């Protein structure tokens, strides 16, 4: 096990030290987000073409996977 401050306990290396908050790994029970069984709330956000997308209307009764991710930039 290396004590290189850029490599975390999973063995991933990044340009910021592991102590930086954006590299912190949650400890203990980790169950973020609304619960399984809840209705997913509706929302309207612009897409990559600048069009406003109303989520449930756009989904139109299809099954869906909604990914929350950190950034397309960094």
């Amino acid at each position, binding site marked *: 096990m290396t004590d290189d401050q850029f490599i975390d306990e999973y063995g991933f*290396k990044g*340009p910021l030290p592991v102590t930086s908050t954006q590299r912190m790994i949650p400890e203990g029970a980790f169950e973020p987000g609304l619960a399984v069984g809840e209705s997913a709330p509706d929302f309207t956000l612009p897409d990559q073409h600048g069009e406003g997308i109303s989520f449930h209307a756009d989904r139109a009764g299809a099954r869906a*996977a909604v990914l929350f991710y950190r950034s397309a930039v960094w």
Partner: protein
Amino acid sequence: MELQHGLHQLRDEGIKLYAISYDDTDAVADFCRAAGIGFTMLSDRDSRVIRQYDVLNTLIPPADVPFHGVPFPGFFLLNEEGVIVDKLFNRHFANREGVEAILDSFLGRVEPGADEPVGSISENDGIRITAFLRGGGGVLRIGPRRRLVVRLEMPDGLHTYGEPVPDGMVATHIEVEGPDGFCCEEVESPPTRPFHLPGVNAPLHVWEGTVDFVIPTYANTALVRTVRDGAESITLTVRVRYQACDDARCFIPRTQTIELEVPVTSGITPSFGQLKNFGTAIEMDSAAHLQRLVERKLGSGPDSE
């Protein structure tokens, strides 16, 4: 992005994919163009929906610009009625699930995909053992989570054991060996059923029929060296030690070995900064987007915290 590569699998099942981040529309548009994204990516610049879904990363304090406002990364899976039926979130942000995990959850089963590395072996005891690496179209990249599935198919009448077993008997044990950088987590075993073997006083726990053992795996940064040295694939060695018995007697314990050859390749990464893995840069002016993000976060008004 791996999601783009696996998109057709979701489309075939009529599953729609949405990706949400706190990037502004210019950054999202630029990324989609550069990476050839064919699914809906949404700009949640105020992290409003991130908060609405209660996934705001609360380990990052508001003063930590520009990182504050990002979510804990993961998926919500919704059924036709818009009800959340599953969530795929992992402690480590790089250790993300892919299209196959989404499919397996919706379909309620795990099967090797068309391109996934798979190996199978069966001996004269009639037990067939199959190992396959599920995810990413069978290609290994640094970060994303892969399920190594070891399937035991036992003919009627035969069973194998789970712990604890009395002295002299052998419980089923699975070991995986791979190169430096290939990491395995604990085996997820299916439930056993209680069993009694004549002549053995201790309670026994058995598996029978067809059962899947799942080993969550991922590749970390240590694999970079292997790839930079020119390797196009890695070899995983799966060893399954077990003892098969029927209602009356037990056979000699044996170890079956399956080797999987797994292609490795690069993912893509923004042209700026965080080279989390051995990525191919895409053409995108990330530095300019990042500067705008930082200014937006430092500014006053509804954007800032």
